[in-house]
């Protein structure tokens, strides 16, 4: 038997292409010619091709139709058991979460646009405090201290002042010895300068 040449070794490495006849264009040049002139390589190629032929018919037994019908449902059960099923449901939950977040953002935005006057005034005051916008001071004061207090009926300030004076007088009668530093000094000053009944009202007090 002839010795295997280097060319035979090279060619037999390439036999894989030829045996499976996958792509003739990928077959190295000269292999077909070599097989024609080298009986040893030709015999090897023939044996390997026969071997592949013997392998191929070994088909896998086909399971019954019921097996294939149950294949995906069984897979779904396993997915559910592992907590993986219902990606679509998960997606729906994420969509709901996104919608809720959008709603919150929208609500915040609306709230920002419909800020109550008091809040706006406080914002102005904060700006003034930060020295960002001194002109805001007037806006804030106008909002916080309207000319007419809606909580006090017009014309009731004098009545309130009179009630306070009556209460103070009653307290002095009940507690004549009570004097705080401030009240005592004020009363002393008033008594030394003018009699109580003649004291003129402070025009800037009301």
């Amino acid at each position, binding site marked *: 038997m002839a010795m295997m040449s280097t060319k035979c070794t090279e060619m*037999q490495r*390439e036999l*894989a292409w030829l045996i499976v006849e996958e792509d003739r264009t990928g077959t190295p040049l000269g292999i077909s010619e070599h097989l024609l002139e080298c009986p040893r390589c030709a015999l090897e190629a023939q044996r390997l091709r026969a071997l592949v032929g013997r392998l191929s018919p070994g088909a896998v037994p086909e399971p019954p139709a019921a097996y294939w019908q149950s294949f995906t449902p069984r*897979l779904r059960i*396993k997915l559910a058991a592992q907590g993986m099923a219902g990606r679509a449901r998960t997606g729906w939950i994420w969509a709901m979460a996104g919608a809720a977040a959008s709603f919150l953002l929208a609500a915040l935005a609306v709230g920002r646009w419909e800020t109550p006057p008091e809040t706006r005034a406080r914002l102005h005051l904060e700006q003034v405090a930060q020295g960002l916008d001194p002109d805001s001071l007037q806006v804030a004061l106008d909002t916080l201290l309207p000319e007419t207090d809606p909580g006090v009926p017009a014309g009731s300030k004098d009545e309130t002042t009179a009630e306070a004076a009556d209460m103070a007088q009653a307290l002095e009668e009940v507690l004549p010895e009570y004097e705080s530093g401030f009240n005592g000094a004020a009363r002393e000053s008033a008594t030394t300068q003018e009699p109580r009944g003649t004291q003129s009202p402070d025009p800037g007090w009301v």
Partner: protein
Amino acid sequence: MTPTPDPNQRDLELVRRFQAGEEGAFDQLVEAHRREIYRLAYRLLGNHADADDLAQEAFLRVYRSLGRFRGEASFRTWTTRIVLNLVTDRRRELASHRPSSLEDLAPAEHPSEAGKQDGFIQAEILRRAVGSLPKRQRETLILRVFQEMKFHEIAAVMGCTVGTAKANFFHALRGLKHRVGS
């Protein structure tokens, strides 16, 4: 006549739809590939029970990872790689629990019936011979002969060059010939 859609394009489209939230697209992928996955598992493990178990596990893995599938390889290549990895794990697991020869890892389903006919005997001899090949040669042979994959697809699955895949195939055939006799 409507042209047959390219399977790779069809798979890619189904993957995209699944990634977009269409759960049913996964079922269609299973429908399209379950037979091939099962047969590959059967070829590698040698019996229905293990093949079924492994095919199901393979699709569970596919489901878990499909969100990250970017389509660099074909879906078929990707799933084949998953099956081969699972088989490797299974064999390793079996080997650690029950030391045995490679031939014993894939017993015939009905060896007594197979012995009744010469054809079955020959098939059994071949099957065992395939099972005794080195891992990469065995996988290459199965992918090429039984799964009818092209060498460039095998190279993608095995993570090697086309030349290496081709060499593995050739050595697998040589090894097989040596085992069963010419």
